[in-house]
């Protein structure tokens, strides 16, 4: 038995909720114990949807103007941050309301490097990722001792504290904690692309790379360790999963994702803002909401959630003429409504629907809620 299967084989023995790992698995014998065969109709639908979505994503910046492109780019960086949080909260079970702070650290790292040190923008993304990753490592260590709601609280503090720290140490234009890098720092590196299109494509490429990385991560050994720690920490420890290392490393990776998102936000929003005391707390909420709406512990969930969130926010803003102040109320109410209608998120809901369809259309297809078929050990 390879280590890859540890979690799956132990789960029933310990009477634990079995690990449900998702998505198209390679059809190897080992994989089939974890991944139920997916009905052909579902696979075909997925391929079609995937191709259509990819084409739409590539064509969008030519179809829309700079205004909408910016909104879409915002959805992309939100999706990256939400994926970071999803790795930590969805797959590893550590609830963080402090990812806004990591996002902010990423944003200010980039902004400071550009404004004060004359860097070009692109390399600062990498620096932000490394820097926030290290910071995540630092926060991940005490997080080993603090769990559940307490962790949520400590990280909440992080998000609330961050703007204060920035206000204390960063002096931008007019002495306030607001950095505006010059426009020229973000000019398009490819001829034929306008600045807003370049920002969109750069963000999109980074997002795709990070999503593929995340997808690989959760399907591999590390990912199973993460899930095992989430589902049953003690049981995971007894079978040799390095619990502490898994948690801390997940924290660092997750923070780095948020940092990259923050860095991209500097390019897209053209500023790093520390003047509003609760802005990074609100960011944390956005990430959490995007993850939950889309579907926690799924790969596409955070992206779907981020898109819904950004569109929702944009459309509620102008919904009622003269009552812009009401926008957050509608926004908040829609969040509550979505959680009521789709408690597993959009991706979870769609998956359930597809599973139901698959059961009906194919006698061989098994519902994914029963991931370990009895005959898998032949």
């Amino acid at each position, binding site marked *: 038995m390879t280590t890859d299967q540890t979690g799956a084989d132990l789960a029933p023995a*310990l009477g634990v909720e079995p690990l449900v790992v998702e998505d198209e698995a390679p059809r190897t014998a080992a994989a089939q114990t974890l991944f139920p065969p997916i009905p052909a109709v579902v696979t075909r639908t997925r391929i079609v949807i995937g191709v259509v979505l990819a084409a739409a994503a590539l064509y969008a910046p030519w179809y829309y103007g700079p205004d909408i492109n910016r909104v879409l780019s915002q959805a992309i960086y939100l999706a990256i941050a939400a994926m970071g949080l999803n790795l930590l*909260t969805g797959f590893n079970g550590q*609830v963080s309301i402090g990812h806004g702070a990591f996002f902010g650290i990423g944003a200010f790292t980039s902004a400071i490097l550009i404004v004060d040190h004359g860097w070009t923008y692109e390399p600062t993304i990498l620096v932000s990722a490394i820097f926030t990753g290290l910071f995540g490592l630092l926060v991940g260590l*005490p997080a080993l*001792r*603090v*769990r559940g*709601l*307490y962790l*949520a*609280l*400590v990280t*909440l*503090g*992080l998000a*609330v*504290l961050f703007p*204060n*720290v920035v*206000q*204390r140490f960063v002096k931008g234009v007019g002495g306030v904690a607001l950095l505006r890098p010059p426009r020229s720092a973000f000019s398009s590196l490819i001829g034929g692309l306008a600045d807003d299109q370049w920002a969109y494509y750069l963000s999109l490429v980074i997002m795709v790379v990070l999503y593929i990385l995340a997808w690989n991560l959760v399907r591999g050994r590390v990912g199973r360790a993460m899930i095992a720690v989430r589902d*049953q920490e*003690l*049981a995971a420890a*007894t079978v040799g999963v390095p619990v502490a290392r898994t948690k801390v490393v997940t924290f660092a990776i997750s923070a780095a994702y948020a940092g990259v998102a923050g860095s991209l936000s500097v390019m897209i929003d053209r500023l790093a803002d520390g003047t509003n*005391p*609760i802005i990074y707390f609100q960011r944390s*909420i956005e990430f*959490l*909401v995007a993850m*939950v*709406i889309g579907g*926690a512990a799924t790969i596409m969930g955070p992206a779907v959630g981020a898109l819904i969130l950004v569109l929702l926010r944009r459309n509620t803003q102008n919904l009622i003429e003269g*009552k812009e*102040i*009401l*926008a*957050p*109320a509608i*926004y*908040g*109410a*829609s*969040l*509550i409504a979505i*959680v*009521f209608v789709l*408690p*597993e998120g959009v991706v979870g809901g769609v998956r359930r629907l597809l599973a139901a369809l698959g059961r009906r259309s194919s006698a061989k297809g098994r519902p994914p809620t029963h991931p370990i078929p009895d005959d898998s050990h032949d």
Partner: protein
Amino acid sequence: MQLFVEQVINGIANGAIYGALALALVLIFRSTGVLNFAQGEMAMFSTFITWKLTTGGLPVWGAILISMGIAFIAGAAIERTLIRPFEGSNRSPLNVVIVSLGMFLAINSLAQLVFGTDPQRLPSPVPNRRLTILESSNGGINITYPTLMLIAVLIVECIALWWLLQRTKLGLKLRAVAADADSARLHGIKAGSMLMFGWALSAAIGALAGAMVASSRVGFDASLMQTIIVYAFAAAALGGFDSLWGAVLCGIFVGVANSLTVQYVNALDGIELVMPLALILIVLVVMPNGLFGKRTVERV
């Protein structure tokens, strides 16, 4: 020395507010296991109701009592409609967090819509005079009436809650449901009503706390509780989240520690929030269940 004592007293007064709000948080957490992020905003909204009533000519104390009553009903209604569908063990706790965060946003913007964005002033229920005790050649120690009021209100609140929880049948039922909802149900207690009552009670406590904060300030707007809720969370976490008295004591502790930090630690100028957070972190790392929390045994 004189300055030190005055700062401590100031800290106790602020801490009384943190403690009161933490009390509301813990009350909800103990009965429903929900961390109510919207607690501060609910309190803020009630404060606006109080203010509105006083502009209609009601005396402040009367207005506070009426708005506590309204908050009580609203709290019950929120539990019934928004929280109830997510109760039970098989629901994701994350969804409840989202609901409470959604409430946070919605209530905040509703308050701005209904009551406007201008800062308002809530008249103080007690005259704004000061009392000098321990008079000596270099001036003595000054305590303002509002400070005394804050402390007195917290004490009265604690005694009333203690009486309710420990000396009445209702309190016994409430505690039974908090300890084990299923067993309580088997004994014929209507667990649902008790949970609703818990939310109603804590909304009313929040309304009182909000009025206290607003009346001790020059003006207030919709951001009234946003910093205070962090301190209240700090107090609740320090107290271990399941202890009402822990929440109150730790609220006062956080308040005092904060006012001393502001006064004496110049390095933290502007980032005083570091202090409650460092406190939470240190306590939780050393004692994961908080100072007053019960230790739990985990089963595999």
